[in-house]
């Protein structure tokens, strides 16, 4: 991979690859589901690392491991540092 500089890219959570770090930009979906995710720590501004991509995926968040499979009406957008 040729790093031509670092930029931020907004993408859905499930597109992150193993080991990639990102921060959560937006949670979209049913309000009570979003509320629950936020209570578990998956909130706007939280930093995550993808441990094992897939469905469900495994995330590192605040030193904890969270397994997540999002549904069609629930989406998490993250900002990842990507080689531009």
């Amino acid at each position, binding site marked *: 991979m040729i790093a031509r500089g670092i930029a931020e890219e907004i993408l859905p959570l499930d597109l992150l690859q193993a080991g990639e770090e990102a921060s959560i930009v937006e949670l979209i979906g049913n*309000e*009570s*589901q*979003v*509320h*629950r*995710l*936020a*209570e*578990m*720590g*998956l*909130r*706007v*501004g939280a930093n995550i*690392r993808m*441990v*094992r991509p*897939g*469905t*469900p995926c*495994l995330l*590192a968040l*605040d*030193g*904890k*491991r*969270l*397994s*997540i*499979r*999002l*549904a*069609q*009406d*629930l989406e998490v957008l993250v900002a990842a540092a990507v080689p531009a």
Partner: protein
Amino acid sequence: MDSTIPASSIERQVSSPAAKFTVALVGNPNTGKSTFFSALCGVPARIGNYPGVTVEKKIGKYRDSQGTVTVVDLPGTYSLSARTPDEMVSVDVLLGRQADVAHVDVIVAIVDATNLERNLYLFTQLRQLNRPIVLVLNMWDRMQAEGRTIEVDELSRRLGVRVVAVSASRSQGIDEAKKMIRQVAGEPHATAASLFPPILEGEVNELSQWLRETADIELQPFLVERLIFDIGGAHASELARRPKLSELPARLAQIRERLAVAGQKVPALETRERYKWIRSQLAGIASVPDEQSRSLSDRIDQVLTHRVWGFLMFGLIMFAIFQAITSGTVWAMDWITGSLQSWLVSGVESLLAPGTLRSLVNDGIIAGVGSVIVFLPQILMLFFFIGLLEDCGYMARAAFVMDKLMTKLGLSGKSFLPLMSSFACAVPGIMATRVIEDRRDRMVTILIAPLMSCSARLPVYVLLVTAFVPQVSWLGGWIGLQGSVLFAMHLVGLAVAVPVAWLLKKFFFPGDVPPFVMELPSYKVPSPRVVFYRVWERAEAFLTRAGTLIFCTAVLVWAAGYFPGDHRPLNELTRKIEQAQAQAAESAEADASTEKSLDGLPLDGLPLEVLTAQRRQLSGQLIEQSLLGRSGKLIEPVVKPLGWDWKIGVGVIASFPAREVIIATLGTIYSLGGDVGEEDEGLRAAIVRSRWPDGRPVYTLPVALSIMVFFALCAQCAATLMVIKRETNSWRWPVFTFFYMTALAYVAALLTYQVGTLILGAMA
């Protein structure tokens, strides 16, 4: 254990009326809350349910230097929101609104010291309840091992509560925590300042006033705030059902609208402000988690959560458990049946003359209840392994691996844990489905949970497997055929559950697959205490059941098998035999001859073996003429296609209230029917010897398999059906479960026997 040391009488005199008080234990899942609870209280004094909901009510007690403290253990939760009726229970208990729980004097908030920031979220809600709080920083040892620090004194000053560092798994800091709880109980406490912008407080006040004026309802500010935060929450809908408050939902919508206009959108407002406050409180006094420290857990997870290896490992672990259950407990079983049971029977024989009372004790109670007790070692072993797997953190990994499969059925990994605990017992398994938020998913999980092979089926399998499956082993004795068959039997229910779940989801509860979010705790060495209590709890439940339900059925079955009938000739014969045996024993002692001469000894001109044969025949006639025998013959045509005789049929029917009863029933039937031998008492020997009238053995491998398959699938558990009724709040679903499972069991047992016999016939 410090909690069981009785306080000295001097200390008791000092104690004031306030010596007794109640504390509530609250915390996130995976904070070691149950370890802390057992370190505080030992075995819970009372486990039950809160009325109307499915929340487990766990209450314990401990003594400190000044008196008794009652501990209410609330279910692990990430938030004190009130979106569902279940969640509302915790809020009600903490606010003293739950009628059947004493007023909570102290809140003990337990948090994981290695993950303070996220765990304190719940604390920010608890501090609004205006109760004294002790903050327990658990897993202190682990945090230290990670080379991190928390400045406890400064944290305590900033948060305005007492803070104690605890390592519950090592029982460190427990006494200090107790001391602190006692101190806090007597102290006045200041009202916590709000951490939300003033606009919210204004809305809360206004709404409180409206509730007071319109419906004369006085709610704590925390509850009013929750009405605003929890969109579509259970508490709001409950209030809105009151005639005067039908306007409430519209009012809440207006409030949220006004907040949104002011840039404070609900529900983001709540989480944002709480986390912001936490971060400011922790700034500079708690070091941030180091990602490297999880490396060991992560390395294990590389294998255990792998989509292929993880799956194989899960199968392997389960297989190993069932191998251990069969090979590790045979000696205990043999000891109970071989030594203990026959010792008891001969003890009774020497005390009681042949007659009704002796028959009741020996055939009804010892052969009935005793046959069930034999299986205590297996059940304890199963719960030992389940306890280990749960406490070390593996179960969450299994749910992660299984989620992929579960989504194919339209369920989620969330359903896996209740199903897994149904392998122990469907009753707690069904209650555990409350973690499933999606109603349709929860219903499907409840309806298939009874198919999981629970520990009450274990005795049936073990009895038949050890009697009819050859004792072959491979790999130097590490893998046995019996253990493998036992494992396979546990897969039968699981395999059948797959199409059942699919059909239910497709036709009864259609809908999208809900999202799945679950925390995977770090692996840890299981706490011996937690595992021990788990095993203890089940041993108690099993023995209680044997002493009550199974005891009663055994006596009823005995009575049905004993009456009506003239037992005098039989008693006379028995007396003769016993005399002969006593004489034989005497003469055997005299000339030190072997058992061989005993059988041939003439008495009344008849050898002993002729007398025993006569007795067996007479006993057989008596039981066939009894109430049990006659009704058994009546149902024999129904069970004959499954390969069963009337005795098995009666046993199966008697075991509909609880499946272990079959063991007791068969034990009594064979004991009454004279099928139990003289040397080897015990049910296993009796079923091996059992014959059809034409002399063919009743039990062949296909018959044993057909019985096992029937038990694997049939809904023979009144407790499970009752819990389904309670959880679904309708009679429709327990009735449905009963019929679908029983029909399935009959058809599957029929196929097993018929196909099995065909195969055996073709091989011969």
